[in-house]
């Protein structure tokens, strides 16, 4: 074996020992992604259901009872009981006891027999606009169903029916959207933060001096730092994918090899970013907060898995292009959920590869400067 290679392996081994001697950190590194993918895969959902409603029933006739029972029976609503008048509705909203309120007018059943019909009032808590919109939609559908029943089976002429199919995710499972997102988040977190901290730590504890006077070239020192975390990430990618498939029932519809290769590429970007942060900072505290503010939050906010990028104002849309997770998220969603091949994701792959080269070059440059 050529001496430089041997040196490199020695350094990589040293980094390994660092990690292995700290079993608590290792346990966190390996266990955390698993726990996260399970918690978030099962718990995060954008669906709206089990929404509590209160009602003011001025009529108290058979029809109003029937309507309220219909609402209770729907999987979207849960009754929080009757309240008396507008003050009751107000109080329920202020105490967070309901998201929507229904007011049944006096003489409901009688009115429904008349030509101009009976009008129900829905009051939605719009502090969360989407939920409010969705709930009003659902409630109106329940009322419309009942209304059609009351009208009887008389055929309406010229009816356009529409059949709706949910493509890719017929059961509307939250996991289909969140698993790719959590994968991006977890890999970024482990790789960027850990590598960022590892170099700075040597600086802070003073052992960096020793490294710098060694005959190792800076590029090799940096690469040796990254190797153990790369391996830990391989392990994490594998466990995340296994858990997604076997526990969360999220299918891998495309090629597993492609998915894995893309994940490795993304891990590389995250590692190089971590190294860049660590060469540019002097204390663990700063490194950590830069990774927190520079990585974690943009990843949640700007990668498109929580909030639609197309809704953002232009500066943020531009900014989102610089978030690696955004591209990785698109890739995972396409390959894993939609089952498309490399032909649809080559652009995103190219962007990630470009980022990798850019960050690595920059990290090595910065590192050299420190050496002099």
């Amino acid at each position, binding site marked *: 074996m050529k001496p430089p290679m041997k040196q490199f392996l020695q350094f990589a081994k040293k980094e390994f020992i660092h990690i292995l001697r*700290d079993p608590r*950190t290792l346990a*966190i590194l390996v266990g955390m992604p698993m726990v*996260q993918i399970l*918690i*978030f895969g099962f*718990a995060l*959902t*954008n*669906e709206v259901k089990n929404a509590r409603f209160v009602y003011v029933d001025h009529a108290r006739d058979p029809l109003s009872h029937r309507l309220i029972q219909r609402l209770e029976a729907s999987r979207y609503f849960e009754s929080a009981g009757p309240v008396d008048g507008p003050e009751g509705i107000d*109080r329920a909203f*202020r105490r*967070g006891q309901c998201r929507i309120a229904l007011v049944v007018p006096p003489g409901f059943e009688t009115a*429904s027999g008349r030509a101009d019909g009976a*009008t129900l009032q*829905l*009051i939605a808590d*719009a*502090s969360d*606009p*989407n939920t409010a*919109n969705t709930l009003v939609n659902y409630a109106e559908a329940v*009322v*419309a169903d*009942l*209304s059609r*029943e*009351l*009208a009887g089976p008389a055929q309406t*002429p*010229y*009816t*356009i*029916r*529409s059949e*709706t*199919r949910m*493509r*890719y995710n017929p059961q509307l499972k*939250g996991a289909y959207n969140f698993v790719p997102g959590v994968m991006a988040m977890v890999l970024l*977190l482990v790789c960027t933060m850990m590598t960022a*901290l590892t170099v700075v730590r040597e600086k802070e504890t003073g052992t960096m001096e020793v490294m710098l006077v060694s005959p190792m070239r800076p590029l090799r020192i940096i690469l040796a730092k990254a190797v153990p975390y790369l391996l830990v990430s391989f392990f994490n990618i594998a466990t995340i994918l296994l858990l997604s498939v076997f526990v969360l029932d999220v299918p891998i519809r495309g090629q597993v090899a492609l998915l894995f290769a893309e994940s490795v590429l993304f891990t590389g970007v995250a590692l190089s970013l971590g190294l860049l942060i660590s060469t540019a900072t002097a*204390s*663990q*505290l*700063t490194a*950590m*907060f830069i990774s*927190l503010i520079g990585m974690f939050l943009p990843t*949640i*906010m*700007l990668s498109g898995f*929580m*909030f*639609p990028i197309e*809704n953002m104002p232009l500066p*943020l849309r531009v900014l989102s292009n610089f978030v690696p997770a955004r591209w990785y998220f698109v890739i995972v*969603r396409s390959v894993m959920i*939609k089952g498309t091949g490399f032909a*649809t994701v080559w652009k995103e792959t190219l962007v990630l590869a470009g980022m990798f080269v850019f960050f690595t070059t920059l990290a090595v440059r910065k590192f050299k400067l420190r050496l002099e």
Partner: protein
Amino acid sequence: MRRLLVIIRKEFGQIRRNPAIIRLVVVMPVIQLLVLPNAADYEVKNILVHVTDRDRSTLSRRLVENIRASGYFILSGYGSDRREAVVAMEQDRADIMLDIPRHFEKDLLREGRSTLFVEVNAINGVKAGLGGAYLTSLLRGFNDGIRAEWTGDGDSRAGPLRTTHTFRFNPRMAYSLFMVPGILVLLLTMVGMNLTAINIVREKELGTIEQVNVSPIRKHEFILGKLIPQFIMGFVVMTIGFGIARLVYGIVPLGSYLTIYAFAAVYMLAFLGIGMLVSNFSGTMQQAMLVSFFLMMVFILMSGLYTNIDSMPAWARWVARANPVTWFIEVMRRVVLKGAGMADIAMELAVISAYALLTNALAILTYHKRS
């Protein structure tokens, strides 16, 4: 008491000398409050519709024109081959495919009925649900219009019941009104927990804790001396946050600031306790950071800040209920948007007080002067 003041003064000295912390406490909330609410716009609009029109009749063109004019949809493609639509959806150039079959108009005229096929990209549940619902209601409206026109009957409504609806507390349906109070809680939490968690471990790692341990400083004095400065910083962050909320987003709480600050004080205590616990159980800053990161992630994502708690599975709703962040976000939104008072949040205040007692008791019990 004198000793306590000395420790507090030492802590403030450290904070003052560390520009990174000051930057964090002042700059972070400003940036986050300016950026995040703009990013977190979940309004469903600009839905991309790809129409496969195999009918090419007057009626189908009129339907397409209706979709284009509705304001909710963007006609991202129009063709007569379904495969084009599928490719568009695979490449994220279409959210919804609408398939107008051959003889759509003829069937409707002759047989009185015809069917349209709608296919929604359902990976993102909200967009799929709302987008699909909007399109269905557009189709229903279109149908009503056509029917009224062809039968010459003005009243095309189905059945005797109708509804009106009002949107309370946020009539403009602005997402910032929903997000800003939640993000304020997030900021307070991050400062409270992360800084505290790292603070004590840092002394451990740098070895300065030995000096504190051999000094006559008592355990509770040391802990209080660490906590009080963080407590004050939390309030500074929150006040800056409310300033920005008012200046930039025009958000003024409907309820009183006093209610919010009172709740925040107890909440801060709870989180300082959690931060202390983390630092007690960590040997290095790296560990402390990882653990607090992990906790933050769970706390944030399980708090109802971004996603709806009601729709989670039952066990996850219990996790959310055990999460102190959930309680404060709830309270914050209720006080700011709905004007809730002390009486309305009494239960939440009791829960969070219990939390504060528990975490701080545990933190004090598990802190040992001897290593």
